[in-house]
């Protein structure tokens, strides 16, 4: 027994000496700590980049970093089961107030940490119950992505509705242009040598695509209604909504499906690939966000696009088109597991600090992941390369209002969205009648009020 103890003691001594040596190697006062890091990644599209970063960090500092990526749409499920394990994630994603409420026992107060101090736009961070629950590490913008080259070509045609892209500055103009393009596909293809089949990409309502409409497009009516009611459109949410702007929602949705080649009756079949349609130059308009940049730029997908081909305009909604910018916000916020050991917490904070302050970390997050990061360390060589992110900043600089992510307040978000999607499927498949639209309104408004009550009932 004594022998065993002495071996254990000397092992512990050697271990502590080794870690001291590692720290001493570092020139500045950066301390990687002695714990373990386990990051449950929220973004499946950048899994590989995170794995590489983790490996590089382990090699440099000897701190074990595990990265697990939850499958698309499975984050909550994965988080719930991982958190119950003894080896629980030390860093997880907590993207909004309702998440912070659910995970209140698990969020470590980040106030005053390095991450908090260097956070660029603190409005994106999530506070709950007197704590800084999570820090936004990047923000995203969505709107209507368009193929600049094709659209400019169209504007140059004699009988085009507009003569420059700048003239598309309201919903009515956009509808006019999209309708015109869609009705003159063959003529445009002949003249420009393009391979267009439609103006807007197919609006898939399957589980892999429907969030663009039940989440992102639905943000527009929610945002304007919250602004009308004088509440903070991003954080608060309302127990009951009225659906004031659902007629605008209908007009935009009708434009999407009326100026597209996709069969309206089978939008939920899962056979549509909007990214392919846009990437292969079959469509001009595509409602999506700046995260789509890396997909569209990826040559392995067979797309022939360059950054110059891409532009993004606001989802003109017919409410306040002159002042509307892109929808900017985030669900990407790092939270630290308060139930982890103190060493693990410190090591996790150190790892994240390294990711957003080291050259390697900044290069990978900025260029390879294509994220618009929310830390003041991203300047000079590390300014955002994403043209969509740049468009968002440009519009704000012109004095437009960035539309907040009102949908972050959605109660029981998956259930509510599914209800809206099911109603949209029925509406679109059955000839877009007023009667079926009432179904959408009911799923939107009554569904919201119902789920709010369920989610906040004690």
């Amino acid at each position: 027994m004594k022998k065993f103890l002495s071996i254990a003691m000397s092992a512990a001594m050697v271990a502590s000496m080794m870690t001291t040596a590692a720290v001493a190697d570092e020139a500045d006062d950066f301390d990687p700590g002695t714990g373990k890091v386990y990051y449950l990644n929220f973004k499946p599209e950048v899994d590989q980049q995170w794995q590489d970063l983790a490996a590089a960090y382990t090699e440099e500092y000897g701190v074990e970093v595990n990265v697990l990526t939850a499958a698309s749409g499975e984050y909550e499920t994965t988080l719930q089961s991982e958190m119950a394990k003894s080896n629980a994630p030390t860093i997880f994603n907590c993207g909004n107030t309702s998440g912070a409420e659910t995970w209140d026992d698990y969020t470590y107060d980040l106030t005053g940490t390095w991450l908090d101090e260097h956070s660029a736009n603190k409005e994106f961070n999530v506070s709950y119950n007197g704590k800084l629950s999570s820090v936004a590490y990047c923000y995203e913008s969505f709107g209507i992505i368009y193929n600049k080259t094709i659209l400019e070509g169209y504007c140059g045609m004699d009988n085009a509705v507009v003569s420059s892209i700048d003239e598309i500055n309201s919903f009515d103009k956009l509808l006019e242009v999209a309708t015109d393009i869609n009705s003159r596909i063959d003529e445009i293809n002949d003249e420009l040598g393009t391979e267009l089949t439609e103006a807007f990409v197919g609006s898939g309502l399957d589980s892999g695509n429907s969030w663009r409409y039940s989440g992102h497009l639905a943000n527009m009516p929610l945002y304007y209604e919250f602004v009308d009611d004088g509440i903070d459109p991003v954080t608060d949410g309302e127990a009951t909504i009225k659906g004031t702007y659902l007629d605008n929602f209908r007009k935009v949705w009708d434009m999407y499906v009326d100026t597209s080649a996709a069969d309206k009756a089978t939008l939920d079949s899962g056979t549509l690939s909007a990214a392919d349609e846009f990437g292969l130059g079959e469509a001009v308009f595509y409602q999506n966000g700046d995260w789509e940049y890396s997909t569209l730029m990826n040559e392995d997908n067979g797309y022939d696009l360059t950054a110059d081909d891409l532009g993004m305009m606001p989802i003109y909604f017919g409410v306040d088109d002159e002042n509307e910018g892109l929808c900017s916000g985030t669900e990407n916020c790092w939270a630290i597991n308060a139930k982890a050991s103190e060493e693990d917490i410190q090591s996790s904070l150190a790892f994240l600090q390294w990711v957003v302050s080291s050259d390697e970390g900044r290069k990978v997050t900025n260029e390879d992941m294509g994220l618009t990061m929310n830390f003041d360390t991203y300047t000079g060589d590390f300014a955002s390369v994403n043209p969509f992110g740049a468009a968002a900043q440009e519009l704000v600089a012109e004095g437009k209002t960035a539309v907040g992510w009102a949908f972050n307040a959605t109660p029981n978000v998956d259930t509510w969205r599914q209800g809206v999607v099911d109603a949209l499927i029925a509406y679109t498949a059955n000839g877009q009648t007023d009667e079926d639209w009432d179904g959408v309104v009911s799923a939107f408004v009554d569904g919201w009020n119902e789920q709010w009550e369920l989610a906040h009932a004690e």
Partner: protein
Amino acid sequence: MEKTIKRYFPLFMLPTMLAFVVGFLAPFAYGVFLSFCKFTTVTNWKWVGFSNYLKMFSKGADVDVFVHALWYTSLFTVVTVLIINVAAFAIAMVLTKGIRGTNLFRTAFFLPNLIGGIVLSYVWLMLFNSVLQNYHMTITSTPWSAFWGMVVVVSWQQIGYMMIIYIAGIQNIPGEMIEAAKIDGANSHQMLRYITIPTLAPTSTICTFLTLTNGFKLFDQNLALTGGSPNRMSELLALNIFQTMYGMQGWQGVGQAKAVLFFLLVAAIALVQNKISRSREV
């Protein structure tokens, strides 16, 4: 000899019992316990007594979906039990007649079982939708197209498995009995009615039991093929529980309570079924 076995049986039983306790009994008991708690993760709970069970029936919309899932699942189970058992039995009969290529057929019919439910359903989803698209429909256009879609997939998957069990049963019918019946002048219809079907009663007990429980606890195929669409009207019970657990903030405990009720229901039905079909065995 017998004494030795008696003396050592705990030793031999130990690994299995241990695995059973760790992998089944303990989580089961813990699950029942959690149904009386409000929890975020299974290690962070707060005792709330019966309120989860009461909440299950408290709110309008969700109860409707739950009740719908209840009868929809029952109907689904009845339909699949009938189709699978009749078809499996018929194929087993044909494949014990000694026709050419018997082994090839048996293998081919068994194969779907070797593929996981999720993968299988995604493949079928593509098949269904690419055909249905010509008629401007998808598999989830109505609750009934979703229903029959699931019936097709599940039948396709399970018929082969049940067929193997039926074949084993048919091959176990004593040759003397068949010979005696033939000498007594029984025709093929009478052979089936008075020899094959009665002697196969134990086999059909097993097969109906398996298909019945499979039908009630079906999850993968439901999730991958329809996901509950349209409008949660093709949600089977297991998926309904899953949605309560993960789709609704703070309702994990209610999901757990539903799961306990679900267990009691399936156990009760399976016991009754077992009792009835056992009484018919010779």
